[in-house]
């Protein structure tokens, strides 16, 4: 990291109302092109941290900047992928993907072209005219990711996007996400419960503890991109899996 960090977090504290501290003393600098996972037990505030970066909630103390400005002012550089696909049930797949461009006021021709391209990227060109209820959970999540990619965000924030999916679908989507990233480069923030997912995707893993959420470990993941599915079976990968799992266990006890 030689240039200024894309996302900088300093002395961040967060509490809701008069409640207890959810996050405390968070310091983190993330450079362009990184893929950072937040992992930790339930209630450690990892989703809150993601929402803070998105500017969907504000810090109680401390500072977050995205590209040098407060998160609320940097929204056009970011997009958020929610825990469930968060599609509008009354809009067809293509119309769902189109939404961010529509709200931004892009011309119809450009929107159509962009939507078609993004559906191709996530492998759902054939489902453009379907309604969300006609898709499986994994396909819905792909639609959600396609929608996020339409605006070509510099930063993509993903809040446990694959948590509700079965392991095979999840692995597949992990691979696809990396493939997409190799073409549409973005800086990634990823919240997850899964150690394997975190190690496979990330360049860096931030382990958070509970009560209050603090950074207890930062693990660098040295494997170069692009990563192949076979990486999961290599000894180096399994060792890092163990290291991360230990760091996570240390938090729980």
């Amino acid at each position, binding site marked *: 990291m030689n240039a200024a960090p894309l996302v900088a977090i300093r002395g961040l504290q967060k509490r809701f109302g008069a409640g207890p501290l959810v996050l405390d003393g968070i310091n983190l600098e993330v450079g362009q092109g990184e893929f950072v996972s937040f992992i930790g037990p339930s209630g450690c505030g990892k989703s809150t941290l993601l929402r803070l970066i998105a500017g*969907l909630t504000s810090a109680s103390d401390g500072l977050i900047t995205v590209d040098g400005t407060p998160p609320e002012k940097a929204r056009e550089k*970011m997009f958020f992928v929610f825990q469930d696909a*968060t599609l*509008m049930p009354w809009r067809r797949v293509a119309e769902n993907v189109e*939404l961010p461009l529509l709200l931004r006021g892009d011309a119809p021709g450009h929107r159509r072209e962009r939507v078609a391209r993004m559906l191709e990227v996530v492998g759902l060109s054939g489902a453009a005219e379907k*309604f969300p*209820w006609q898709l499986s959970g994994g396909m819905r999540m792909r639609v959600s990711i396609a929608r996020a990619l339409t605006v070509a965000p510099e930063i993509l924030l993903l809040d446990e996007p694959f948590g509700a999916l079965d392991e095979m679908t999840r692995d597949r989507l992990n691979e696809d996400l990396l493939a997409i990233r190799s073409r549409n480069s973005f800086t990634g923030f990823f919240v997850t419960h899964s150690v394997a997912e975190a190690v496979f995707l990330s360049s860096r893993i931030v382990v958070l503890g509970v009560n209050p959420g603090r950074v207890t470990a930062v693990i660098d993941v040295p494997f170069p991109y692009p990563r192949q599915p076979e990486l999961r079976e290599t000894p180096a990968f399994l060792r890092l899996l163990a290291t991360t799992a230990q760091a996570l266990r240390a938090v729980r006890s």
Partner: protein
Amino acid sequence: MSPSLRSRLSTYLLPAATAAALIVLWYVLKAVFQVPSFVLPAPHEILVAAWEERSFLWPAALVTVRGALLGFSAAVGVGFLLAMALGFSPRVKASLYPLILVLQMMPVTILAPIFVLWLGQGLPSIVAITFMIGFFPVVANTTMGFISVDRNLRELFVMCNATRAQEARYLRIPGAMPYFLTGMKIAGTLAPIGAIVGDFLAGSAQGGVGGIGYMTISYFSQLKTPALFATGLVACVMGFVFVGGVNWLHWRLLHLWHDSMVKKE
């Protein structure tokens, strides 16, 4: 027996058989207890009366349909706009909703003479009464729809820097549609009843034509009981036509996507 045949059997044949059985029972009871026709006419007498009185009942039905349609449209239109105001601003909701409830608690029989005082006998009062009966279900349901927007979807719009108008157009209004249509269904069921009650309480035969409610009073005072029953028959048919129309709209707008309509295999 194939499943589709069986389901058709229970949809059409069972109610038809029940109705036939009840009609037979009706004839039997009338014969056994020797009930005179001015107390309880036989079913065929009602049909005959409906036919004989058609030159009165048909125009009366049209008058009532007009009142019901106008009152229903007003209830749906005003109800939707009011719900929008209530749903979009918690402050408006807090200040207005209790008052709407108060209005709703007021029985129509009390409101009717007030409307007659203000608007006179006839169509305006009937429309006002129909409106009063129909608008609350529209407001209550649609407001619920505007309020219960998925939190994540709202945050999606925040992430897109959407304006309030965009949020209304692309998120809240389509999201509230199923609720709005439910309110509309209830209002649709109540509208013909409202128009008949309104006609009963505030109707007039100005221009020589009263509505169904007015005819009810007229037949009652003449003890034309079969014709009185025939007005009930007309009211029933009107109700089905109204509800059918709203159901059709409901289906048009929701059948492609809403959980209540889509077939999941």
